[in-house]
C-alpha cells in the first residue's frame, strides 16, 4: 500500500473509531476529545512549520483570531451553523496571516519565533483593552446548529464532536497529501538548505509564506472549534502560554506523521485531566515532568514509539 493511502486509511479508521465511540463516551470525554482535536489542528500547523524549519511561538494569534471570528459571527451576524463558523475561523486566520506573513516569511530561527511571539502578544494586548469584545473576560459563544442539526439534545449532542472529527479528518488527509506533493516536499528542502532551493529555481520565501498561511488556517479552525466547544472565548487564547502549549504538543508528538499531533494532543489532554483530577495542586508539576521525560527519553517524540516497533518487526 502506498504511504499516502495508508495514512488516509489510518485517518478513516480513526474517524470510524471516533464515530463508534461517541455513544459510549460521557459528556466530559466528548469535550476532551473535541478540545484535543482542536489543539491537534493547531499543532498540525506547527508540524508543517517545523518541517519547514520554523518554530512559531505565536500560533495563539491565529487560534484566537479564529475563535473570536467565530464568536463575532455568531453573536453579531447570526451565523448559526458550526461548520460555517469553523470555516470562517480558518478564513479569518488566513487573512491575518496573509498580511503578517509578508513580514514573517523573511525571518528564520529564533527571530521568527520571537517576532511571531510579539505579534500574538500585540493581539492579546488589543483584546484585553477592547470593551466591545469583552476585554479580559471575553464573551460567550452559543452555537445553534452543526451541519443543520440543532445542538443540544439527541443527535445534536454530538454536533461539535462530529464537526471536530470531520474537520480533523479532512485537514489531516489534506495536509498529508500536501506534504507529499512537489510543493510540500520543498518544505524540508527549505529547512535543510534555502540557497540550494533557490538554485533549483524555487522560491524559499514563497514556500515559507504559503506554509505560514496553511498553518494559520489550521490554527484558526482549531480556535473556532474550541470556541464552539467551550462556549466562550477570552484573550488567554492569544497569550504566549497557549502558543507555548501548541509548540509543546507538536514537538512532543514528533513530526514524522501528520497523525502524531492529534494523538499527542489527545494524550496530553488525558494526562492533564487526570493530573488535574488526582493532583489538583501539582498538575503542572506532573505535566512538566512528563514533558521532560519525553524530551530526554524519546528525542523524536511520542510517535517514534510506533516507528521503532514497526522497524523492529520488519
Amino acid at each position, binding site marked *: 500500500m502506498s504511504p499516502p493511502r495508508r495514512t488516509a486509511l489510518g485517518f478513516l479508521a480513526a474517524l470510524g473509531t471516533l464515530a463508534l465511540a461517541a455513544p459510549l463516551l460521557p459528556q466530559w470525554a466528548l469535550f476532551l476529545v473535541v478540545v484535543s482535536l482542536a489543539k491537534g489542528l493547531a499543532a498540525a500547523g506547527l508540524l508543517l512549520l517545523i518541517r519547514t524549519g520554523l*518554530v512559531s511561538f505565536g500560533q495563539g494569534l491565529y487560534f484566537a483570531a479564529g475563535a473570536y471570528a467565530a464568536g463575532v459571527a455568531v453573536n453579531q451576524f447570526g451565523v448559526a451553523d458550526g461548520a460555517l463558523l469553523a470555516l470562517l475561523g480558518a478564513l479569518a486566520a488566513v487573512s491575518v496571516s496573509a498580511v503578517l506573513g509578508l*513580514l514573517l516569511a*523573511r*525571518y528564520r*530561527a*529564533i*527571530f521568527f*519565533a*520571537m*517576532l511571531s*511571539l*510579539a*505579534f500574538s*502578544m*500585540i493581539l*492579546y*494586548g*488589543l483584546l*484585553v*483593552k477592547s470593551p466591545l469584545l469583552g476585554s479580559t473576560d471575553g464573551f460567550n459563544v452559543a452555537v445553534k446548529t452543526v451541519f443543520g442539526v440543532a445542538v443540544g439534545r439527541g443527535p445534536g449532542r454530538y454536533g461539535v464532536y462530529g464537526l471536530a472529527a470531520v474537520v480533523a479528518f479532512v485537514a489531516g488527509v489534506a495536509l498529508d497529501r500536501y506534504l507529499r506533493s512537489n510543493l510540500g516536499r520543498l518544505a524540508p528542502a527549505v529547512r535543510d*538548505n*534555502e*540557497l540550494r532551493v533557490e538554485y533549483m529555481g524555487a522560491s524559499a520565501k514563497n514556500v515559507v509564506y504559503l506554509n505560514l498561511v496553511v498553518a494559520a488556517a489550521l490554527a484558526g479552525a482549531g480556535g473556532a472549534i474550541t470556541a464552539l466547544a467551550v462556549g466562550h472565548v477570552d484573550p488567554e487564547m492569544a497569550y*504566549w*502560554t497557549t502558543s*507555548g502549549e501548541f*509548540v*509543546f504538543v507538536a*514537538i*512532543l508528538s514528533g513530526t514524522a506523521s501528520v497523525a502524531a499531533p492529534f494523538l499527542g494532543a489527545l494524550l496530553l489532554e488525558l494526562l492533564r485531566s487526570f493530573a488535574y483530577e488526582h493532583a489538583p*495542586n*501539582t*498538575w*503542572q*508539576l506532573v*505535566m*512538566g*515532568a512528563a*514533558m*521532560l521525560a519525553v*524530551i*530526554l527519553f524519546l*528525542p523524536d517524540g511520542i510517535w517514534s514509539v510506533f516507528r521503532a516497533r514497526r522497524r523492529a518487526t520488519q
Partner: protein
Amino acid sequence: MSIAVAVLVDGLIYASWLFIIAAGLTIIYGVMRILNMAHGSFYALGAYAAASLAGGWLRAGYAPLGSYAMLALSALLVGVVVGPAIERGLLRFTYGRDEVVLVLVTYALFLILEDVVKLVWGVESYFVSEPYGLLGNVEFGPLSYPVYSGLLVLAALAVGVALRFGIYGTRYGKLLLAVIHDREVSATLGINVNRIYLVTFTLGTTLAAAGGALTAPTVSVVPGMGVEVIVLAFAVVVIGGLGSMPGAALGALTVGLVRSAAVHLFPQVELFSIYVVMALVLSFRPRGLFVAAEARKI
C-alpha cells in the same frame, strides 16, 4: 512638564528592574544558547525567598536596616542553590540538542517550578513592604518618589558595571568570551567549558532572583508572578539583541520608557505598546539593535 519628568523617572525605575532580570537572561543565552523560560520562575523564587527571609528578620525584631541584607542574601541563596542544581542535574543532559528543544526543556522546568513554589509557600500572598518605606521619600518637584526606587536604579547600575568589568576586565571574562565565540575550540584550548556553563547559569539565576528579591517589597508576592516577567524579559533582550549586554541595557531603557509613556499618556495601549516596539525593532533590525547581521551559512 511634570508628566515628562514622571515618564522619565518611572521609565528609568522600570528599566532598572527589567535590566537586572534581562541581563541574566541574555548572559545565559549568549554563553549557553538557551532561551531560558524558567527565568520567570527564578524571579518568583527570589521574591518568595526575600519575602520569607526579610519577613522573618523583621518579625524577629532585628534592626530593620538589616532587611536589605536579607534581600541580597535571598537572591544569592536562590542563585547558588537552584542554579547549579538545575544546570548539573538537568540541563547538562540536553546540551547539543536543538535550540527549540532547549526552550521546551526550560518551559517544562517553568511548569514544575510554578508548582514547587506553591508546594513550599502555599497559595496565599506574602507582603514585606517595610524595606520599601523605610528610607522615606524624596521630592522631585511636585512628585514624590520612595528612596527605595533610587536604590533599585543603583543596583541596576552596579550590576551593569560589574558585568562589564567582569566580562571585559578579568581573565575569567576573557575565557567566557572565548566560549561565547566558539565553544569547541575553547574546549580544545583547555578551557573548562563545563565550569563556565555552571558559573554562567548560576550568575543568570542569581540575577533573576535578585530582580525578584528587589521587587518583593513593592508588590504582594503571589503564585504566577513569573509568567508575565518571562515575555517582558524576552522583549527586552530581543530588542537589544540576544546575548548582548549593552543590548539588554538599551532594550530595558526602551521598554521602560515606552511603558511609562504609555501608562501616563495612553493607558489603553499599555499592555501591547511594548510588543509593538518589539515587532517594530525586529522588522527593521531582525537581530536586535546591538547584534551585527551574520552571513548566511551554506
